[in-house]
C-alpha cells in the first residue's frame, strides 16, 4: 500500500510540534529571559504610579487567548498587589475579560493580604466603544456606576478620589484586539494619562510606532513579554515555565522551513515544482 505523503506530511508536522513542546513542558528547564526595554519601561511605569492614583487593568481578552493574555494579566496584577498599588479591572471588548481578571486577582490577593474593595475593584464589562471611553474619561462613576457585584463603585474605599481620567495613574490594555488606539486617541491624547500595552504576539508589531512616539509607556509582547515580566518580579510563573517549550517549537519550525525550502529547490531544479524553468524541445 502506497503512503499518501500529501495527507500525512502535515499530520506528522503537528505530531512533531506536539512532541517538541511536550518534552520541554515535562522536563524542567530553567529559562532565563533577556528583559527588553519595552517590558522594563512598563514595569517602571507601574512602580511610578503615585498612591493617590488608581491603575486601570483593561481586560479586553477572552479564553481564546488565555495562553498569552492570562500570564500577562497574572504578572501585572501580581505586581500591583505586591507594591500595594490600587487597581481596577475593566473590560469593554470581550464580555468574559473582567471575569477572568477577577478569577486571577482573587487567587493572587491572599498571599499579599489584599482585599476586594479596599485594594482593588472590578468595574465589570461595559459596551459602547469609543463614545463610552470618551464619556468614561470625563466621568468614571457616572459611566461605570456599579461593579460586578452590582454595588455602586463609589461605595468602595479603593475608589476614593477617582472621578476622571486625570485620577488614573496608568491604564494597561491587555488585549488581542486593536483597542489600544481608542485609549490613545481619547484618553492619552486628551488627558495625557499614561497607557501601557500587553498584547498577543500577533498585535505586537503594530504597537511599536506608538511606543516609538511615546504614546504608550511600555509593551508586553505575548508570552515572551509575560516571561520577561515574571523575571522582573522574581517569580517563576506559567510564562517562564513555558518558554523552553516555546523556543523548542520555534527551533523546530525554523528547521522545517529550511528543510521545506531545500526540498522545494531540489524539486525545482528537477523541474517538478512550480516556478521551475520550462525547457522546450
Amino acid at each position, binding site marked *: 500500500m502506497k503512503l499518501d505523503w500529501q495527507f500525512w506530511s502535515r499530520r506528522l508536522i503537528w505530531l512533531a510540534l*506536539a512532541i517538541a513542546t511536550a518534552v520541554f513542558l515535562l522536563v524542567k528547564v530553567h529559562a532565563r529571559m533577556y528583559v527588553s526595554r519595552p517590558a522594563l519601561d512598563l514595569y517602571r511605569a507601574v512602580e511610578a504610579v503615585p498612591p493617590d492614583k488608581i491603575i486601570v487593568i483593561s481586560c479586553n481578552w477572552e479564553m481564546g487567548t*488565555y495562553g498569552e493574555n492570562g500570564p500577562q494579566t497574572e504578572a501585572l496584577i501580581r505586581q500591583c498587589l505586591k507594591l500595594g498599588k490600587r487597581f481596577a479591572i475593566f473590560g469593554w471588548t470581550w*464580555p468574559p475579560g473582567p471575569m477572568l481578571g477577577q478569577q486571577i486577582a482573587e487567587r493572587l490577593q491572599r498571599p499579599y493580604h489584599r482585599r476586594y474593595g479596599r485594594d482593588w475593584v472590578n468595574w465589570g*464589562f461595559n*459596551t459602547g466603544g*469609543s463614545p463610552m471611553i470618551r464619556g468614561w474619561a470625563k466621568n468614571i462613576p457616572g459611566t461605570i456606576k456599579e461593579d460586578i457585584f452590582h454595588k455602586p463603585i463609589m461605595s468602595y474605599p479603593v475608589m476614593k478620589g477617582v472621578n476622571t481620567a486625570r485620577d488614573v495613574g496608568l491604564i494597561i490594555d491587555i488585549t488581542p484586539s486593536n483597542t489600544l488606539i481608542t485609549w490613545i486617541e481619547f484618553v492619552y491624547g486628551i488627558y495625557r494619562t499614561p497607557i501601557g500595552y500587553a498584547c498577543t*504576539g500577533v498585535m505586537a508589531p503594530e504597537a511599536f510606532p506608538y511606543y*516609538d*512616539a511615546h504614546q504608550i509607556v511600555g509593551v508586553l509582547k*505575548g508570552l515572551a513579554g509575560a516571561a520577561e515580566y515574571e523575571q522582573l518580579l522574581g517569580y517563576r510563573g506559567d510564562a517562564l515555565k513555558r518558554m523552553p517549550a516555546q523556543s523548542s517549537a520555534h527551533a523546530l519550525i525554523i528547521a522545517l522551513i529550511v528543510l521545506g525550502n531545500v526540498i522545494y529547490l531540489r524539486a525545482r531544479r528537477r523541474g517538478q515544482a512550480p516556478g521551475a524553468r520550462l525547457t522546450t524541445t
Partner: protein
Amino acid sequence: MRSVAPRLVIWLGAFALAAYLGIRFHVFAPTLGIWLAAIATLAIYSILYRENVVFRLFEHIFIGLAAGYSLYTVVVQVLIPKWFTPLFKEGCWYWIFAFLVGTMFYSVYSKRWSWMNRVAVGFFMGLSAGLGIVGFVTGLAPQLMASFKPLWAQRPPYVEFNNVVFFITLVTVMSYFFFSFEQRHPAVRGSARLGRWLLMIAFGAIFGNTVMARMSLLIDRLQFLLLQWLQVFGKG
C-alpha cells in the same frame, strides 16, 4: 426500541442530577471541570487529523456558549444597571430615547419602515466621522512628529544608526507607494524596490510574531492536558 428509551431517559436524568449535586456541593467540581475542558480541547484538536462530526459539535457548543455568555453579560452588567434601572426605578425618562433609537436599527426588516434604519445609521456614521477626526489629531499627529528624527550627533551611537535605518525605511517605503506616476527614473525605481524588500522584512517579522502567538496558545493547552488533566487521570 421502546424498552431502551425510558431507560436512557432515566440514566441521563440520573447523570444530570449527579452532575448537578456534585457541582452544587463541590464534590467533584474541579475534576469534572478539568475532564470537560480536556474533552473539549481534544475534540477541537481532532480537526488536525481531518474534518469530523465531533469537531463540528464542539465548535457549535463553543459558539453557543460564547454567544450566550455575551448576551448574559450585556443584559446583567450593562442593560439592567445602566438602562433599565435609571429608566424604570430612578425616573430618568429620557433613557426611553435609547430604546427608540436602538429599535430603529431593526426597521431594516420592513420595506415600509426601513428609512428609519438609515436615520439611525446616518447618526452613528456622523458620530464616528467626528470621533475619527479627533482620533486623527490625537492619535496620528504625534506619530508624524515622532518620524522627524535627528540623524547625527546622537549618544549612544546606536541611536544614530537606528535613526538612519528608520529614515531610509520611511523614505523608500513611501516611494514604493507612489502610484500616481510611473516609476521610470532609476533613483525612484531603486528606492521603491528597496522599499518593497524592507516591507517584506517587516511582513516576515509580523509573521514570526504570529507563529509565536499561535505556539503560545498550543503550549497553554498542552500544559493543561499534560500537567492538569493527565495528573488527574493518573490519580483516578
